[in-house]
């Protein structure tokens, strides 16, 4: 199963603690600790960036640029405990900047993702490991696009910086919280209705 970085997004307190620890070590002169931080957080940043709708190639560039930004301006991270949030916010801002100047941005890639769903037995179908996941995917795909994007963001970062989310989704900042609530409710409804 493809589990690159699926220890659970920044929700996982183990990941959060490990990232904080690695960042602290790096900042006190332990150079290899940066490698640890890069390996644990890059997959998370991947999902943060992909949630904005950038294609895979552009997403890889954005992840790389996010790390360059960190190395160049690590002093601006005042609180080591905020490192995961700092990285996710920087990645989303960079993704938004790139999508504004690039024609490579596409709002959603449902077709691409759909193609990997287990319609029939094939190597690709192995990526979805359970009926439960297929069920969840079908429910998600019935939600409005805005819901899909917002939920993908909060799945990887439960408490994101709302201002950068508002920019990347083109929504007023005040509507993010209520929209998130409504989208989760809709998703539950779809899950129930599809059962």
């Amino acid at each position, binding site marked *: 199963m493809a589990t*690159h970085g699926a220890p659970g997004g920044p929700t996982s307190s183990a990941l959060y603690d490990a990232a904080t620890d690695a960042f602290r070590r790096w900042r006190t002169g332990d150079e290899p600790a940066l490698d640890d931080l890069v390996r644990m957080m890059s997959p998370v940043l991947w999902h943060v960036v992909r949630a904005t709708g950038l294609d895979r190639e552009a997403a890889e560039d954005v992840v790389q640029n996010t790390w360059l930004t960190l190395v160049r301006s690590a002093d601006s991270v005042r609180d080591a405990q905020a490192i995961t949030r700092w990285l996710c916010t920087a990645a989303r801002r960079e993704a938004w900047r790139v999508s504004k100047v690039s024609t490579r941005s596409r709002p959603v890639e449902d077709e691409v993702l759909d193609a990997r769903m287990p319609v029939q037995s094939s190597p690709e179908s192995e990526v979805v490991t359970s009926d439960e996941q297929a*069920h969840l995917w079908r429910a998600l795909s019935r939600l409005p696009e805005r819901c899909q994007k917002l939920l993908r963001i909060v799945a990887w970062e439960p408490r994101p910086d709302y201002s950068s989310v508002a920019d990347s989704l083109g929504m007023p900042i005040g509507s993010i919280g209520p929209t998130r609530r409504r989208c989760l409710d809709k998703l539950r409804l779809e899950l129930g209705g599809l059962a």
Partner: protein
Amino acid sequence: MNTFDDDLLQAMADLYAALDPAPADLADGVLARLAVQDLEAEFELFTLVQPVDTLAGTRHGDEPETSATVALEFAGSAYRVLVRISDTDDGRRLDGWVVPALPMRALLGPQGDALAHTRQSAYADREGRFEFPAAVTGEVRLWLLPQRGRGDGDTVPAFVTPPFLV
């Protein structure tokens, strides 16, 4: 399906991780780029000493030779590097020698941050020899990063060659 928010969000994170996994070499690409970026300001530019004549002749212009081998020698303040590029069945091969032999990481690839993820990495052995058996082709540069904490690496500057053609 559990209906608590956290569990639902976790299930979504797992779903996206399965459907749209990060490239397996994502972190390696980041690290390769950071390794170069880190030292960019400190890089000393090698100078091309000479293209070295080889029996098979040199490639230039639009006269490709099937078994062409070309050798280049670059020199910096602390060490020299000899680079030999040869044809293989599948493409090109690049062999390098650092003199004097030093623990060294070599990166080979095109110039510019945007293509940094396509750079290849190799380590020089105790004889100062390193190789890229399937070298990236086109206009490339070679970065040599002395490995810190190993031997005299601490005092040796990092070098980058001028662009050359593989």
